[in-house]
């Protein structure tokens, strides 16, 4: 919301600097985000009077204008077509002036003639949208020759950009904002009188319909100055209104102004609109916009001649009904949209935008002014459905004041009579099938002190509530009955009133205290605690943490061969982010591919996040947490070494992470089920990970085809651990139990066994460990050999077997016997032979 400091000063009577007003509004909860000075730098720009004008010879577009600038006459060359006749007033930039666009004015020759200054357009001065030609002041507009233009035309101002929260529609107009300014500076506020029409239609029966809205009071002091105007033949002074949908339109008023003359608005109005970001159009439309900016109440003007009937019907649209809106778009409606119709069909989308066919034009003579109150939710739905967010819908969907209708009507009618020379019907139709009375709130005057944690005198509470427009009457049980003003739809509960008391007193005035919260003893959620330890362990091992978006494209998942269907977003921002990830692989894959493109020698990343697995028949997915690692490129960063990450790096990193966080050994083994479960892994370089037989994850080198699909030029090692399973395994494992330290020494024996390549180390080690000898304490692989002395397709595995008897010192003889049995049994089990 843009607001003019000058206008707020006029309305509130508070004479404070823009900076002070901005700070005060922010303290009240109306955050002023920006204060933009206007009219600065217009030194040497003055009002001047035209004394003579003559064409420049040979230059048919140029005029030599003689102006009086308060000090003397000077001659300027002007290229505009609208130089006024002698006596007309214009704006002159004297040499030395620098205009807002940066143009520096100096004496110069134009077409062989000396020009000492420039006559300015609104655009050049930065004070209007311009149009054809220079700014010419009309009679009745202020400014005498020599006066600085910024003083004469009141150009100096500060425009506030206020970030309004949606609960404060009352501040979407300057009067509401001025009320807050007055509040901030402790000044009593009186809303300005809306004025009464200066010209009135004669002969309108004022008792036509009781409850209708009289536009002037009988004893109004200006009755003497009132001009009575004959009604125009065949033009009604009252238009019948029928509301078929009272719950969506609780109030609708229509007032007639006859005989307007469409033309440009005076400079002050054009300038006021322009500086607040509204394009001036003509005097009738400008009045509706001014009322909107002033009172925050959107109103609409119809060309009465274009209304069939003429009558107004407010009803819901018929499914598929259409109408062209002011912006030229053909709109199609649903039965949930509210329309303003005449005798023939729709003429406006209620509260959103008027129709093209009834809009004000150059030849409009008679106007019907609409001032209404619409149901906020209905307007919002229509505005969203049509994708049409307007100044009007913005206010209606936040809630305008239903009881502000008469004021807005009076204001619009009186301005239109004044500026467009119209004559008003003395009464307007005001149909109000569902009156909205101020809300009554039962309020305990001790409530503010109790909730804010400070003593607050009842007197202070009462003053605060009355200052914002509440009426207070006593009720039973020492409670107050507080009637909130209808321009504050946000006030409905006692707590809302507490906030008013708090913000008027200032949040700074509330003390600070630490609560006595008894710790629950729960502390950090177990999953979050484990996640933190896993992350720290992964980072300690040299991995960088990645954070990817939770959404990916369907293609990302397909290309990465992630099995299973993902959950889709109903309204994604793009196809690239259309589904929720079911795996952390696509994100890490993309990150690694990117770092390879940046010529990084290696990438070592991890991510710990949730994935989303749809559950049949359940509205919500499961959200298991995964820890994933991705390693690619050089294992060791050194020019002299070129080892690349492989399966064993992945296994080693994950095992270290698990060891560091759970103190459990991580086992890896082949599993055919991974074909289906992890088709993205290399079928010959992958493993299932488990702890004590509980499957906790997978690790492997990426399937080369998947790498190709991701444009990855390096082998990627990918692994993931599933936090739920880690919990399960940790729980099953329990707390490690202490064991007595061995009292007798161990003895070890080495053995080298030759096995076929297809025999896995784990199988041989297991065979040695479980060959039936309780003396075996440990089996460690210490060498793998292929080559001379070993036939093709075979390998030699060297193990150290550690023997210990917990109850006695082992003799060599006992060990030799045991070792012989162990080796024989193992060889038989796996089909090995001893190495020669």
């Amino acid at each position, binding site marked *: 919301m843009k607001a003019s400091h000058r206008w707020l000063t006029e309305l509130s009577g508070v004479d404070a600097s823009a900076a002070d007003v901005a700070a005060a509004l*922010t*303290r009240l*909860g109306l955050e002023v985000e920006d204060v933009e000075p206007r009219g600065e730098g217009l030194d040497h720009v003055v009002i001047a009077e035209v004394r003579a004008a003559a064409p420049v010879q040979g230059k048919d577009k140029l005029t030599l204008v003689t102006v009086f600038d308060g000090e003397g006459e000077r001659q300027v060359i002007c290229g505009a077509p609208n130089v006024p006749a002698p006596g007309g007033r214009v704006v002159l930039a004297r040499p030395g002036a620098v205009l807002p666009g940066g143009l520096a004015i100096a004496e110069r020759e134009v077409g062989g003639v000396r020009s000492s200054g420039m006559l300015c357009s609104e655009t050049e001065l930065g004070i209007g949208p311009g149009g054809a030609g220079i700014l010419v002041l009309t009679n009745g507009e202020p400014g005498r020759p020599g006066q600085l233009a910024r003083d004469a035309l009141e150009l100096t101002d500060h425009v506030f950009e206020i970030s309004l*929260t*949606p*609960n404060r529609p009352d501040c979407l107009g300057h009067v509401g904002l001025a009320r807050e300014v007055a509040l901030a500076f402790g000044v009593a506020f009186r809303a300005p009188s809306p004025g009464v029409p200066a010209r009135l239609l004669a002969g309108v029966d004022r008792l036509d319909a009781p409850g209708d809205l009289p536009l002037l009071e009988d004893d109004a002091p200006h009755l003497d100055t009132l001009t009575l105007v004959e009604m125009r033949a065949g033009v009604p002074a009252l238009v019948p209104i029928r509301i078929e949908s009272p719950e969506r339109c609780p109030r609708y008023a229509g007032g007639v102004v006859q005989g307007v003359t469409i033309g440009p608005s005076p400079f002050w109005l054009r300038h006021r609109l322009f500086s607040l970001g509204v394009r001036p159009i003509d005097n009738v439309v400008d009045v509706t916009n001014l009322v909107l900016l002033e009172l925050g109440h959107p109103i609409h003007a119809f060309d009465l001649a274009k209304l069939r009937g003429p009558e107004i019907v407010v009803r819901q649209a018929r499914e598929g009904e259409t109408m062209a809106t002011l912006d030229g778009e053909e709109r199609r409606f649903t039965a949930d949209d509210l329309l303003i119709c005449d005798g023939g069909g729709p003429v406006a989308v209620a509260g959103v935008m008027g129709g093209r066919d009834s809009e004000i034009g150059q030849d409009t003579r008679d106007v019907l002014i609409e001032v209404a109150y619409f149901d906020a*939710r209905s307007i*919002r*739905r229509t505005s969203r459905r049509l994708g049409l967010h307007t100044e009007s819908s913005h206010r209606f*969907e936040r809630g305008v004041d239903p009881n502000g209708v008469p004021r807005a009507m009076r204001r619009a009618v009186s301005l239109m009579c004044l500026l467009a020379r119209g004559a008003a019907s003395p009464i307007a139709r005001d149909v109000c099938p569902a009156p909205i009375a101020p809300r009554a709130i039962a309020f305990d005057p001790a409530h503010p002190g*109790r*909730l*804010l*944690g400070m003593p607050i005198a009842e007197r202070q509470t009462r003053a605060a509530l009355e200052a914002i427009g509440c009426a207070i009457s006593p009720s039973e049980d020492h409670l107050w009955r507080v009637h909130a003003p209808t321009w504050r739809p*946000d006030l409905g509960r006692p*707590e809302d009133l*507490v*906030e008013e008391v*708090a*913000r008027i007193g200032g*949040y700074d005035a*509330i*003390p600070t205290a630490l609560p006595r*919260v*008894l710790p629950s003893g729960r*502390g*950090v*959620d177990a999953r979050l605690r484990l996640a*933190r330890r896993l*992350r*720290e362990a*992964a980072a*300690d091992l*040299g*991995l*960088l*943490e*990645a*954070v*990817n*978006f*939770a*959404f990916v494209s369907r293609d990302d998942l397909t290309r990465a061969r992630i099995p299973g269907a993902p*959950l889709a*977003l*109903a*309204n994604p921002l793009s196809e690239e982010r259309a589904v*929720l990830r079911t795996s952390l692989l696509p*994100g890490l894959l993309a990150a690694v591919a*990117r770092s390879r493109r*940046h010529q*990084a020698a290696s990438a070592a990343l991890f991510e710990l996040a*949730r994935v*989303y697995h749809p559950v049949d028949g359940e*509205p919500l997915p499961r*959200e298991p947490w995964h820890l994933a690692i991705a390693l690619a490129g050089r294992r*060791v*960063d050194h020019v*002299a*070494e070129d080892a690349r990450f492989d399966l064993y790096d992945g296994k080693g990193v994950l095992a270290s992470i698990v060891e560091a966080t759970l103190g459990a050994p991580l086992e890896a083994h082949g599993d055919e089920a991974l074909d289906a479960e992890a088709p993205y892994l290399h079928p010959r370089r992958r493993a299932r990970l488990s702890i004590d037989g509980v499957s906790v994850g997978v690790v492997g080198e990426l399937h080369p085809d998947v790498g190709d699909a991701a444009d990855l030029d390096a082998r990627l090692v990918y692994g993931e651990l599933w936090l739920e399973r880690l919990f399960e395994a940790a729980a099953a494992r329990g707390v490690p139990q202490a064991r007595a330290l061995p009292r007798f020494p161990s003895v070890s024996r080495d053995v080298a066994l030759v096995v076929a390549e297809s025999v896995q180390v784990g199988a041989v080690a297991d065979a040695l460990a479980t060959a039936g000898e309780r003396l075996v304490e440990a089996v460690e692989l210490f060498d793998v050999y292929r080559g001379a002395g070993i036939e093709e397709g075979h390998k030699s595995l060297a193990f150290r077997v550690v023997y210990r008897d917990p109850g006695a010192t082992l003799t060599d003889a006992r060990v030799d016997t045991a070792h012989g049995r162990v080796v024989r049994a193992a060889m038989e089990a796996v089909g090995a032979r001893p190495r020669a």
Partner: protein
Amino acid sequence: MSDALERFEKGLREVSEASAGAFTGRSTEQALRDENAKLVGPNGQLTQLMKLMRELPADRRKDLGQQANALKAEIQAAFEGALDRLARAAREAELTGPALDPTLPGRGVRRGRLHPLTRTIHQLVDVFVALGFDVEDAPEVDYASNCFGKLGFPPDHPATDMQDSFFVERPGGELDTVLRTHTTTVQIHQMLKRPPPMAVICPGAVYRRDDDATHSPMFAQIDGFAVDEGLTFAHLKGVLTAFVRRLFGDEVPVRFRPSYFPFVEPGGELDMGCVFCRPWEADAERTRACRVCKGTGWMEILGCGMIHPVVFEAVGIDPTRYTGFAFGMGIDRISMLRHGVSNIRLLYENDARFLARL
């Protein structure tokens, strides 16, 4: 008999002669071991000779045995001496030979980092844990009613514009599940789960349909709240002031001003003194030029307020008995401020050059 004696004595002489120069001029350990094996190995000369011992005359056996053993010891000593000389020569060569090129790059030790968002979360969480808050999780895909209705967002109200949500597709076409737009949903989950009193924070990712230089469709938040009998706005101010001071320093000023969130009343926002131009140090020029706070000296850091009674009503807590306060803040912004990151998207691009530096 005498034949054996003769052969043995001759053999001893031969071994003695052979051993005399056996270890000289050998430049490798293997050569030395080979020579040694020729003399005293399993098939070595002396070993073979010893096999004749039994055939020697008994009166000479002891004497010759001693001679043979002495010779073996001599050979052993010579062998070890030669090994030792070789080792010393190698050591000498290493110490005086060509030096390693110290200008070759050092071998990199991989350094891992937690993501800047994670580190910021850990810091914030630690402060609130120290203040007595539990840390809880809440689902990211949730019922729209938990995200909006139960938190006091009126239906079809512009307040929901503040949080344009992603809906999650359902087989029946219902639009009743969303990616949470704020971690405030933790209030609903926790209050339904356990009775007051409680004090909880919840860090996590949230999602809104925004995508530009200052908005990312996914970002991180922390929400917190406390419910008990007699909690007041003064307590809210106390806890949040303590939070800011522990995180940014005791000298940082804070100010609370009114604002609006549907789930709190009274509602507010907390501004803290700009930690870049540090206006409390009274360098007005520095503040005027500060781009971070745009010269205001203040940075908006979080939204807060007293829990709205509609929230209590939605979860079945008696609002006439209990009060509570709540707050929520964006983690990305705090993280960006701390690290001087200007574009939020950098946080989610996972560029190793960015991650490794922060």
